[in-house]
Structures are given as structure tokens and as C-alpha cells.
């Protein structure tokens, strides 16, 4: 069982979250392949697909056209982001009944530290089963849970047996359960990294941990180093307390590309979309940020972060995206392709605390605020994708 004395961390991952909610709302979709799409039929991408669709080889992030070729009978539904957010909040409330150490990492995933909740009874597996059944009973959705001694291993464990899985990955089980698997099962290994590793003759997790740190560092830099130590079970990052989350210091959105890109128009479009997500999230939390940071990881894994502050806290999409775009190192992007882009908002301040009045009223900003308000209203009624920025439409090329 658990290696006694250590931590017990759960990673809860909702199964095909958006698709499952659609099937819950629309009984006629149950048992059928469902694609939840972003953008139109011709140029959009699949954000989530049901397990029935996955059986046909459909995957998230795939162009809708390709998905429909693989699975012509699939039902395509537009996403209803606001409904998904409400489900996410309800699920989190269930988690918080079990432990205050709940750290959501996205809309459909969270880490829970249940170390303190365990005595002689219940055992980790009992508690995880209880969480699964309460989520099922109260929210109507299934999830997969990974149980381990740290966050990294718990996340791998939850992915080993989906959907509706419950998997342990204790220290004593790593040799048997993890080492023989492909490096693709490791968090942070996508097709690009997989290729780099394959060129080194590294195919399984076992190959990775047996390779010298210097060899890996020379090809993948710090990212590689981190990958290897994580695969060895070295991750003592804590699960944050819900109180910490409420007093959140920053928020960010990132996008890793399946194929590295350098098209400036495309990069601008991705930045706009990331900024849009950030701006909506700030508005939902009624927060403004005073610093915007752009993170760029190049194809050689070199990573830079550049930030800039504004004199007044802002939640304005235009301000955030403009700053982020100006921070993009155009010269480097020409010579080096981009693997990941991220936009972070920090120095968060409650907008209600923004009390300094201005001498100059910018009529442009007033108009923009009114337009933003209308967009948010439409989105809250018809879903996030009901209105999108024209500048983000080019995005489908990025996939």
C-alpha cells in the first residue's frame, strides 16, 4: 500500500469533461460520438470529444474537418463555456468537503492532498472511491483519479486508466507500472520532445532514467533535467490550500503548439486568444492586474519571460493583449520557432480598490468597455464561442 510516512496526493481528472456535460444535458447524445468544437466546421478545432469518438481515433486539438472524416457520424456541438465553469465550481465544492488542500490546475483537473485525512481508516483508496461516488451522485459526471506520493506521479496515475479509473502509483509500484511505459505518458512530453528523446535512443521511462543527466541536459536543457528528476519521483511541490488560491497572486494561460510556429500573424493571434481568456477570468473574479508577462519557449527549449507594468490595474483585453504583443521578441521569433506561448497577469488588485480617478477620459476606452460588456453578456448567455475576436480566427492554423 502507501509508502508510510509520505504524502498522499490525488489527481482528479474529469473524463472528457465538456463532452460528458453535453451528454448529460442532451440525453440523445449519450452513447454516441460527440465532438465539442471551437470555431466553425471548416476551420475550427475539437476541444473535447467523447470516449465514443476517441474509439475512432479522434483527439482533442484535431481540426474538426479531420475528426469528421475519421468519424462521420459524430455529433458536433458548440461549447457552452459558462455551463462548464459552473460544473467545475460544483465539483470543486465536493473536493473541498474532503480537504482544504485543493488546487485546481484547469477547469477539469485538480490536485488534492489527503495526507491529513487518513488515519487507520479510511485508506487512500476508500477516500478516493468516496470522492468519485460523491461527484457522480451530486454532479452526475465520472472522473479518473490517480493516487501517489507526489503531484507529478498522481497526474500520471490518473491518465493510466481512463475513463472512470482509480489507479495508484506508489513508490514501490513505479518499477513495474511506470518504467516500461513510453516516455509519452510523462507530463510535458509531446511529439516534439518525444522525437528529441527518440533520437537519443530513449523510448521508455526506464530508458530516460538510465540516461545520464548530462546527455539529457545537452539536448533538452532545464526542461530535460526536470523531466528526468520527475520520472525518478522527485517532486515535492505542495498542493496549495484553498485559502492561498483565494488570495491568488497571479493567473496565466499557456499554449504549447503541436508544431513549433514562427508566423508572426499566428503568434499575435494566439496572444490575443490567451489575453482574451485572461481578461475574462480577471473580470469574473473582479480583479485587475498591474503586470503582464509574456512567456516564450523556443524550439530549442530556451525560455524567456518579459513583463511590463501599467500604472493602473487593468482587466481590459486590449491593454493586456497589446502589452503582451509588444513584449514578443520579434527578432528572435524570426530565427527561432516558438514552441509555447504564455501570458500571465500578476500584481492582482480588486477592481473595487481601483479608486484613483483620471484627468483625461479616453473616449476610445469608454467605447471599448461598453463593447466588452456586451460581449460578456452574449457569452454568458450563449457560451464563450458565440462571439470571438476576428484576430483569433486565424488560430486554427496553429493546431
Amino acid at each position: 500500500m502507501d509508502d508510510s510516512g509520505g504524502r498522499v496526493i490525488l489527481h482528479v481528472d474529469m473524463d472528457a469533461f465538456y463532452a460528458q456535460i453535453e451528454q448529460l444535458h442532451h440525453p440523445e447524445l449519450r452513447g454516441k460520438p460527440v465532438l465539442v468544437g471551437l470555431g466553425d466546421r471548416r476551420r475550427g478545432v475539437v476541444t473535447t470529444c467523447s470516449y465514443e469518438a476517441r474509439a475512432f481515433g479522434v483527439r482533442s486539438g484535431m481540426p474538426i474537418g479531420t475528426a469528421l472524416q475519421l468519424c462521420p457520424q459524430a455529433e458536433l456541438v458548440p461549447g457552452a463555456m459558462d455551463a462548464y465553469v459552473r460544473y467545475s465550481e460544483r465539483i470543486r465544492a465536493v473536493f473541498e468537503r474532503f480537504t482544504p488542500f485543493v488546487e485546481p490546475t484547469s477547469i477539469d483537473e485538480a490536485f488534492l492532498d489527503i495526507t491529513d485525512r487518513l488515519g487507520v481508516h479510511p485508506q487512500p483508496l476508500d477516500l478516493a472511491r468516496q470522492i468519485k461516488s460523491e461527484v457522480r451522485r451530486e454532479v452526475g459526471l465520472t472522473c479518473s483519479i490517480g493516487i501517489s506520493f507526489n503531484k507529478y506521479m498522481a497526474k500520471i496515475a490518473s491518465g493510466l486508466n481512463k475513463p472512470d479509473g482509480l489507479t495508484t502509483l506508489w513508490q514501490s509500484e513505479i518499477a513495474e507500472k511506470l518504467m516500461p511505459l513510453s516516455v509519452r505518458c510523462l507530463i510535458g512530453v509531446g511529439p516534439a520532445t518525444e522525437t528529441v528523446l527518440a533520437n537519443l535512443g530513449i523510448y521508455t521511462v526506464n530508458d530516460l532514467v538510465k540516461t545520464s543527466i548530462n546527455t539529457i541536459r545537452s539536448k533538452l536543457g532545464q526542461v530535460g533535467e526536470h523531466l528526468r528528476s520527475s520520472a525518478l519521483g522527485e517532486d515535492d511541490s505542495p498542493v496549495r490550500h484553498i485559502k492561498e488560491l483565494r488570495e491568488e497572486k497571479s493567473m496565466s494561460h499557456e499554449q504549447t503548439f503541436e508544431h513549433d510556429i514562427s508566423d508572426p500573424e499566428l503568434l499575435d493571434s494566439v496572444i490575443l486568444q490567451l489575453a482574451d481568456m485572461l481578461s475574462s477570468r480577471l473580470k469574473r473574479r473582479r480583479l485587475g492586474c498591474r503586470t503582464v508577462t509574456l512567456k516564450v519557449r523556443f524550439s530549442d527549449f530556451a525560455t524567456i519571460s518579459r513583463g511590463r507594468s501599467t500604472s493602473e490595474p487593468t482587466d481590459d483585453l486590449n491593454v493586456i493583449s497589446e502589452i503582451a504583443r509588444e513584449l514578443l521578441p520579434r527578432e528572435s521569433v524570426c530565427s527561432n520557432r516558438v514552441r509555447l506561448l504564455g501570458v500571465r497577469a500578476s500584481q492582482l488588485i480588486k477592481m473595487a480598490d481601483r479608486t484613483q480617478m483620471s484627468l483625461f477620459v479616453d473616449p476610445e476606452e469608454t467605447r471599448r468597455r461598453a463593447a466588452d460588456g456586451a460581449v460578456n453578456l452574449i457569452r454568458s448567455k450563449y457560451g464563450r464561442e458565440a462571439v470571438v475576436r476576428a484576430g483569433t480566427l486565424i488560430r486554427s492554423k496553429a493546431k
Partner: protein
Amino acid sequence: MKFQMAASKLLELLQIVLGAVPGKSPLPILGNILIDAKDNGITLSATDLEIAICTTIDIKPDKTGAITVQAKTITDIIRELPDTNVTIAADSNRVEIATKTAHFKVSGIAADEFPRLAEYTAAKEIRMPSEDFSKMVRKTVFAVSTDESRPALNGVLWQTAGDKMIMVSTDGHRLAKISLDNRKLRGVADDLIIPPKALSAVTRLISDKEKEIGVVFGEKNIMFRIGSTTISSKLFEGPYPNFDQVIPTDNDKRLIVRRQDLLAAVRRVSILSNSLTHQVKFTIDKNKLLLSATNVDLGGEAREELPCEYKSEKMDVGYNASYIEDILKQVDSEEVVFELASPVSAGVVYAADRTEDYICLIMPLRLVD
């Protein structure tokens, strides 16, 4: 290149040009100082590409030539020398610094790799009293915006077109405007937006013996001469916002208060103000001004009452204490006037004795209880 100079004199020259050396730069050459020895004098120059400072001393070198050397290294060495005669010699890529007993060798970068700096065209120079210039800069530069999203506000506006020479700066929350009679500069240039770094560099160099400074107005840049030092600077692009439009003319409430007393009280009370907003509430009543602040994080509260002259109805208005302090430090008079209209509109602040044409605007903080 070879010349000799007193170490203390050389240090003085180095410290003048250090003002233009950037703290951090992607171009290593900008961390260097250019030393150019010509028959008519030795010139030291530094630039961050936004401003450049050059200073010349009338010494005939033993051998002419030029080289650049890391600013920090040479300054550190010269600073540590006793005040003795120092010999500076250089070939194309190495500088030697020697006294009778000490000897240093530092590698340099060839002078032709240093950015070409604009020449000071003495023929176009206009001279103005250095005191006027210093005063205008001091009284406006504090209100310059540091927010890069509106670049025009990052500089001080200098207008010389009309009968009045005007300097204005604002960050959108407060504004400072000073006007002086304009005789010599009238009509010489369009509105200019000057980086504060250049203005501060000029005022720092003005000493009692410099009664006048020289100014050369260019299209894209401006140059100043203080004695044997020249400072050139890029200009920011406009347009500058229409500041006249936001200066209220019909504020009907007048609060008159002793400046030093108010400044001291604001400083004290603001210790317990909100650390983000620095809000100090002014409760203004008949001849009585109450300042108050609260800081929830510290569980703190502060109040202080001051006598004042005020005849209108009672009013509560919130201000950022730092903005009030900045303004009160620049108004030169015993009493200061606040002309107010409402808790949500700009207040006009000026010296009660009106000996100078100087006003500041301050926008309130919205009071939330």
C-alpha cells in the same frame, strides 16, 4: 593616445558622463566611455542611445587618439587613487592608467565602434538663464508618467511658441504646469516632449557659476550646453494631450492652509493609509480640516486636525498622499490654496501669494466606505 591630468579632475569628468551610461544594456559598447584626445582638448562621452553626455577639458595631450573603456572599471580605479597626477595612455584596444607608483591595464573597445553622437552646433545656440530652466524642470518633472502605454506622457512638454514659456507634465492623475515670461525663446521651436532623464541630467550639472545654459533645438532632438558639457537627447513623439481643457476654471470652493503644517500632517497620517491607494481623506469643514486614513491590513487608523480657511459647505474628498506630498514640496509659499468643486473632480493647487505662475491639478480617489 596619451595625456595627464589630476586624478580628482578626471573623476569629476567621469562622474559627469556616467549619468548617460545605461544600467543594463544589450549592447556592451554602451557600458563604455569614449575618451577622445584631440589637440584642442580631451573629451569624455557616454550614451544610452536616448541621451548622450559629452564633457571636454582644455588639456593638450602628449599624443592624440581615442578609445572606449568600461565605465565602471575606470571610474572604480580613478576613485581609489590618491589625488595625484595620473597618466592615461592607450593603443587601439588597451588602456593604461598610471601614477608614479601604481599601474593598471584594462582592455577597451575601438573608438570607431562607439555610436556616432550628434555634434553640438554652437551657431544655433540660444542662451537662457539656468535658474529659470532648473526651476521649471524641478516643478514639473515629478508628475511625469512612468506608464509606457502612453509614451507622450513619459516626457515633459516644453512650449516656447508664445509670450509665455510653459512646461507641463502629467501622469493622468495629477498635472503640474509652470509658465515664465518668454523673451528669448519665443517661436524658436514647436512643442517638445523631453525625456525626464535628460532634464534631470541638465539640472544636476547646473552649479552656481553657470548663470546661463545653451539650448539647440532640433527636429528630432534637443541639445543643452552647461559650461564645457553638452547633453543631447531624443524627443518623444506627440501628440501631448490637451491639458488646458482639463484645467478647471470654475471651482468655487477655496481651502487655504499652511503648507508646511499640511505636508507634515499628511506624512504622519499616511503612515496608516492603505498601502495600495495611499488614501488620505480630507474632511473639510468651516475653518477646520480633518485628515484621516485607515489601513485594514495593519488594523490601523490615523486622524489629525488642522486649522484652515474655508467657507463653503462641508466636503469629504480622498487623495493619494504621495501626490499631495509631491505637490506641497514644490509650491513655494507659506500658505497653499486648494480650489475645489466636488469630491469627484480635479482640484487646483497653487501658492496663496501667487508670486509665480504655477499650478498643480490633482484628481481625487473615489471614497469607498
